[in-house]
């Protein structure tokens, strides 16, 4: 047994939202934990509270009941060691790519140092965008823009990376490439990753473990460890175990939807 606390731990978390049309119970009795440097995918139908899970972890939202801990400390406000990648890249259209990557430090402290710019350029090189530093977001494709979004999330060198369906707006081919690129970055510089997705194959292909969420009110209905060898590649897609995992998760989701 390790003595270090889990990177992320949810203990009996419930979340209720007050809306104009009444109360909505988004999460009920969520228990789960993610170890340090583990890559965990959260899979589930839309509206099951996957994004709520992510917002609770980021500290943007306080749980109605239960406890959310990051590295053993209960979350009371957003932390500096968490980076977020959103579904849409949401870059600043007036700022150059480099300015977009250094935006977190400019926004937090009001100034940007030469060292920050150096960090940004290295990150852009890492996400294969060397030479695009001075372009505007408009001049980049959707996939490239999302890579800038990833570089921006990595800028503060967070321990935890929260990704909210980051590749769902991309075409199938780009989506697959981006997945492998993300794994390459993750293997090079390990991080704890919580990856929200509704794609079964994406979850299996990328993650160490897949958590499946059920319909609202969301709770964890399956915790599946993915024992596929790393580093993963296009070859992994042909692995027989991969098919078994995907088949198992698909029938699980279909059964629950029925």
């Amino acid at each position, binding site marked *: 047994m390790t003595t270090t606390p889990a990177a992320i731990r949810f203990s009996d978390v419930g979340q209720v939202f007050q809306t104009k049309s009444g109360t909505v119970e988004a999460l009920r009795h969520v228990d789960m934990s993610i170890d340090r440097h583990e890559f965990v995918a959260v899979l589930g139908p839309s509206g099951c509270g996957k994004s709520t899970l992510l917002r609770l972890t980021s500290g943007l939202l306080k749980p109605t009941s239960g406890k959310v801990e990051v590295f053993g400390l209960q979350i009371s406000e957003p932390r500096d060691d968490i980076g*977020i990648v*959103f579904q849409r890249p949401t870059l600043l259209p007036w700022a150059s790519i480099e300015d977009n990557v250094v935006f977190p430090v*400019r926004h937090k402290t009001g100034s940007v140092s030469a060292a920050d710019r150096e960090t940004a350029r290295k990150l852009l090189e890492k996400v294969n965008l060397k030479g695009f530093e001075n372009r505007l977001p408009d001049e980049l494709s959707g996939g490239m823009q999302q890579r800038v979004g990833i570089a921006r999330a990595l800028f503060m060198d967070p321990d935890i990376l929260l990704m909210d369906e980051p590749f769902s707006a991309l075409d199938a081919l780009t989506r697959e490439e981006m997945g492998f690129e993300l794994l390459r970055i993750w293997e090079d510089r390990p991080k704890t990753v919580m990856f929200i997705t509704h794609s079964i194959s994406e979850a299996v292909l990328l993650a160490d473990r897949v958590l499946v969420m059920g319909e609202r009110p969301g709770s964890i209905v399956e915790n599946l460890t993915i024992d596929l060898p790393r580093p993963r590649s296009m070859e992994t897609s042909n692995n027989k175990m991969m098919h078994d995992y995907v088949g198992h998760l698909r029938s699980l989701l279909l059964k629950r939807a029925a």
Partner: protein
Amino acid sequence: MSDTSAVSSSSAPPEAPLAKPSLMARALASPGLLPVGTFVAIIAVWEISCHLFSIPSYILPAPSRILGGFDSIDTSRWLAHVWGTLRVALIGYFASIFVAIPIAIALARSPVLSRAVYPILVVVQSTPVVAVAPIIIVALGSGDLPRVVITCLITFFPLVVSTTTGLMATPPELIELSRSLRAPVWREISQIRLPFAIPYIFSALKISVTLAVIGAVVAEFVAADKGLGYFIQFSTSMFKVQQAWAGLVILVLMSLVLFQIVVAVQKIWFPWSLPKEKI
């Protein structure tokens, strides 16, 4: 082989009509030609009708006679009138921006304030400025101040509404990013919300700059001793209709130039905020 030849031969005919576009098609294709052509045609019809039907010039002077109206007073007098109107319009316009943007920020930040103040703004906007102008002049005297206030009243509403809408239209993800960084609120406004509102602010700035000229003229109608509004009213009271028309032409040109300046400012300093050109 037969397939490829069929494709190449079938692709040839559609190109033929493109080789010789009609005059009409060319006029439609060039963006400047069509409006200029329409404008020239209207002026021509106007000129010809005035002579053909012998319309008295106090009812509708021909364009050629309006040109004569420009000579009725010398250039320095024209400039004094232009400057009188322009000064009030610009001071009112900038004062309005200066007041409207902080109010928009306050409204966007506080739903309670928004609910409290918004109906008042609608009431102010619903009050015809022309009707309020004499009251304001009586209350504030006959200096520049009442004229500036009238100009502010007319330009203020579109600026507040548009800027508030723009401030609320920021992508929610960036607001979450800002919160997750625990950045101060004023930086959320200055670095995210205000820049994202730029396209909205400029659409209001374009409307308001022409409204500012209207505001200045309305104020001059009520009480003034210079300005193009005063000049037009004075000219018509003396039955110098061509002269009034000449004043009107200058007024329209002033509005157009001011509008184009706002358009140019957006193009030069905020090119990213313009709608994407369709290819």
